[in-house]
């Protein structure tokens, strides 16, 4: 049975409230995990663990949050920006994300801003349905 986006969002918000100690009205769809909700690297794993439990699925961390491996690859990052190859890689790995804004200035420091609550919901939606 297909799970609706609203249902997924509700459960994701629950997970984020527990994992990050934020209020549920802070975990809005467009909130960024690091910037707005204060997530640190270990929190990403915590979120993955909790989502796996909540939705009873396996989530390879690379699939949901692939930014770390991109950043450590010299072919994909040059002068602090993602190369064309890096952007292609990002698109392939994260089909659930809209990077049209980011593409204009692919500064890796702004990569973190791509990870919003909505991105998790989109990922889960494609995974579950």
């Amino acid at each position, binding site marked *: 049975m297909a799970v609706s986006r609203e249902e997924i969002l509700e459960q994701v918000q629950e997970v984020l409230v*527990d*994992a990050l100690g934020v209020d549920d009205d802070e975990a809005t769809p467009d909130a960024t995990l690091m910037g707005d909700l204060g997530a640190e*690297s270990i929190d990403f*794993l*915590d979120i993955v*663990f909790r989502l*796996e*439990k909540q939705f009873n699925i396996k989530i390879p*961390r690379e699939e949901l949050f692939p930014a*770390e491996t991109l950043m450590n690859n010299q072919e994909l990052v040059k002068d602090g920006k993602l190369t064309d190859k890096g952007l292609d890689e990002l698109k392939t790995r994260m089909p659930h994300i809209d990077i049209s804004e980011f593409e204009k200035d692919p500064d890796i420091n702004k990569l973190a801003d791509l990870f919003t609550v909505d991105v998790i919901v989109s990922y889960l939606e494609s995974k579950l349905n």
Partner: protein
Amino acid sequence: MRWIWIDKFVEFESGSRAVAVKNVTLAEEHLHDHFPGFPMMPECLQIEAMAQTAGILVGEAKKFREKVILAKISKSAFFDFVRPGDTLRLEAKIDSITDEAASTSGTITRDGQMIAEITLMFSHIDRNIGGKVFPEENFVFTGMFESLLHAVQNDKEKAGQS
């Protein structure tokens, strides 16, 4: 583990759960100051006891090849004071474990009464995403803690013989 803050394991199921015991005594000097006239075990040291119980459980699950570091206290709630003379029972179980990290949940009880609920996350730091390199030697699991595990194994063997 450079200092041991639990007294012994009484149950140990590899990769899933462990139960340790910690006796609280007035011989612990910090209790004289915490607080004068009303000695009670600091909550942070209850977390330490749980971190050791769960940390050894997580370390053993990967046969102590990983350096297991407490990375996050996801949740801690305390329901009563812990006083000198109390015997704490610390029960930890592994909720999730991957190559990079593990999460555990645990309870501390005293004579069946709930004292604390503590949920933790541990990182296997050699697999950290920052790519930092740590010394080869496993400075987390030194020989000191091994006696703890031997004791519970010995008890098991004795129980099996009788």
